[in-house]
């Protein structure tokens, strides 16, 4: 465990508006941060709180955080201006296993497209055959596609309403793409119900599937129980956030999470 209470200082270099609800902060760090694709950081602004975020890019001293305005802390962080500071600790958790043999299909829904980008870049640099599917409700809700184009990424788009790319949901697009191509590995980040559908398809076809979950993380050390997946007793902060999809199907995955008070609440997305 390399968690430490020492925070790394980061300056906001720019703030890019992705959609009305989503912004990407481009940060300049005071020193290089080593973080594996899929691992997360705790991102703190004194007075505004601290939340777990999986970076959308980590290259040397540049770090991108793509943040959806969900609650108070995320809304504050997503609204920061160039020159303002955030403080980072981590990395935490287990990232994606990118050394499994075979071809990779990446499926990113909403901000998941951004969080999957480090894994995509890492695979492509290793020369692994990789296809990246990104999706959203409509063209306006697509996240990070501009940055992906700048990075020279090969990706395909699906929108529920067909305003860009394939018309349909990501699981539908996934089935369509998978029927034409063979893949041995699937990585997915996005709304949990979407990930459940993808994981189920992967199990049907005997394909390895790694999913990344989001929960309320409090201690980040695996002791407080805020991010636990019942009935497995797996903790997202230390056992995850990346899990083998098959192993967690049938658990709280896609169905329940815990609120700030530890009450089990239904996952609606």
């Amino acid at each position, binding site marked *: *465990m390399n*968690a*430490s*209470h*020492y*925070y*790394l*200082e980061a300056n906001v270099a720019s703030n890019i508006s992705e959609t009305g609800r989503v912004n990407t902060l481009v940060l300049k760090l*005071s020193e290089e941060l080593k973080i594996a694709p899929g691992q997360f950081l*705790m991102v*703190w602004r*004194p*007075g505004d*709180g*601290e*939340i777990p975020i999986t970076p959308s890019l980590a290259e040397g001293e540049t770090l991108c955080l793509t943040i959806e305005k969900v609650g108070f*802390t995320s809304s504050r962080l997503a609204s920061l201006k160039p020159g303002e*500071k955030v*403080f980072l600790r981590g990395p935490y958790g287990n990232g994606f296993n990118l050394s499994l043999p075979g071809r990779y299909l990446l499926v990113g829904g909403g901000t998941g497209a951004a969080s999957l980008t480090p894994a995509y870049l890492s695979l492509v640099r290793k020369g692994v055959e990789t296809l990246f599917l990104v999706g959203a409700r409509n063209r306006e809700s697509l996240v990070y596609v501009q940055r992906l184009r700048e990075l020279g990424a090969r990706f395909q788009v699906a929108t529920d309403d067909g305003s860009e790319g394939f018309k349909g949901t990501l699981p539908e697009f996934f089935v369509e793409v998978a029927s034409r191509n063979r893949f041995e590995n699937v990585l997915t980040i996005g709304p949990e119900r979407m990930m459940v559908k993808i994981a189920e398809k992967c199990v049907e076809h005997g394909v390895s599937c790694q999913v990344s979950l989001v929960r309320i*993380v*409090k*201690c*980040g*050390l*695996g*002791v*407080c*129980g*805020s991010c*636990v*997946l*019942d*009935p*497995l*007793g797996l*903790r997202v902060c230390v056992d995850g956030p990346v899990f083998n999809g098959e192993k967690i199907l049938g658990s709280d995955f896609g169905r329940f999470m*815990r*609120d*700030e*008070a*530890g*009450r089990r609440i239904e996952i609606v997305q």
Partner: protein
Amino acid sequence: MHPNIEVEVAGLVLRSPLMVASGVLGSSGSLIRLVSTNPYVGAVVTKTVTYRPRTGFENPTVVDLGYGLLNAMGLPNPGYSNYRVELESVRRGLEIPLIVSIGPSDENEAEEMVKELDNVSDGFEVNLSCPHVENLGIEVGADASRVRGIVKAVRGSTGKPVLVKISPNVTDFVTNARTAVEAGADAITAINTVRGMAIDVNAMRPILSNIYGGLSGKAVHPVAVRIVFELYEKIKKPVVGCGGVYDWRGAVELILAGATAVQVGSAIAHSQSGLKVFNEIGEGVRRYLSLKGFSSVKQIVGLAHLEH
């Protein structure tokens, strides 16, 4: 020789003197079940539950100092009636005692909670010592008449063992423990966390959103040893030691100081091997007993005291 490590605390027979301390892993049914499968876990104390649901404080709520943990979680919990449902399912088939930690702010809350939780628990630990929540914990624990009132209410509402967890953050913890015992406590758990804070030098701000927190882990171990040692001499009831037990030495030290059983908390977060830390401690205690020629861990309780 295979020394016996079974102990008895306030009528509860524990297969091992090691208990999971409150606040660590005791928050969800699945985690309680998981820890209970470790043969060296003698009992689990749940996360403290309060009368009403509490969301706790904003992050950051925990600072990992390496030599300890500083936390101000703010007692997040679903409230006793929601928690009851969770405990109901976990207690079925549980092989070890489940001790429910409660944080009532007055007698009425204590009575209602204990009556409601009585048939899903094997005992209670009354948390009168959380150092960072207003009107709960230490604010209650520092006031002798409130301690008396709450412990009496708990005692009067259950026939099961009642432990009272005391704070090191008051000058007169002995009086507190005595008050609890007079009011009907069967055992005293010592200690809860020690008040502290941490400042980030880059942000130049306190790290915890609550500013102050409670220190646990290695750093507080000597404080726990000292308080257990003193309580062993001054109260007539068993003492459960808690504070910075990371290895068998730490556990043996507390037992020699007078602890009948020992709780383990922060070590679980710091251990590379997670729950296996219980195996390491438990096996180490057994090896120690064997080496020193004892047949039971009960024989070394309080041995560090001069009269022995």
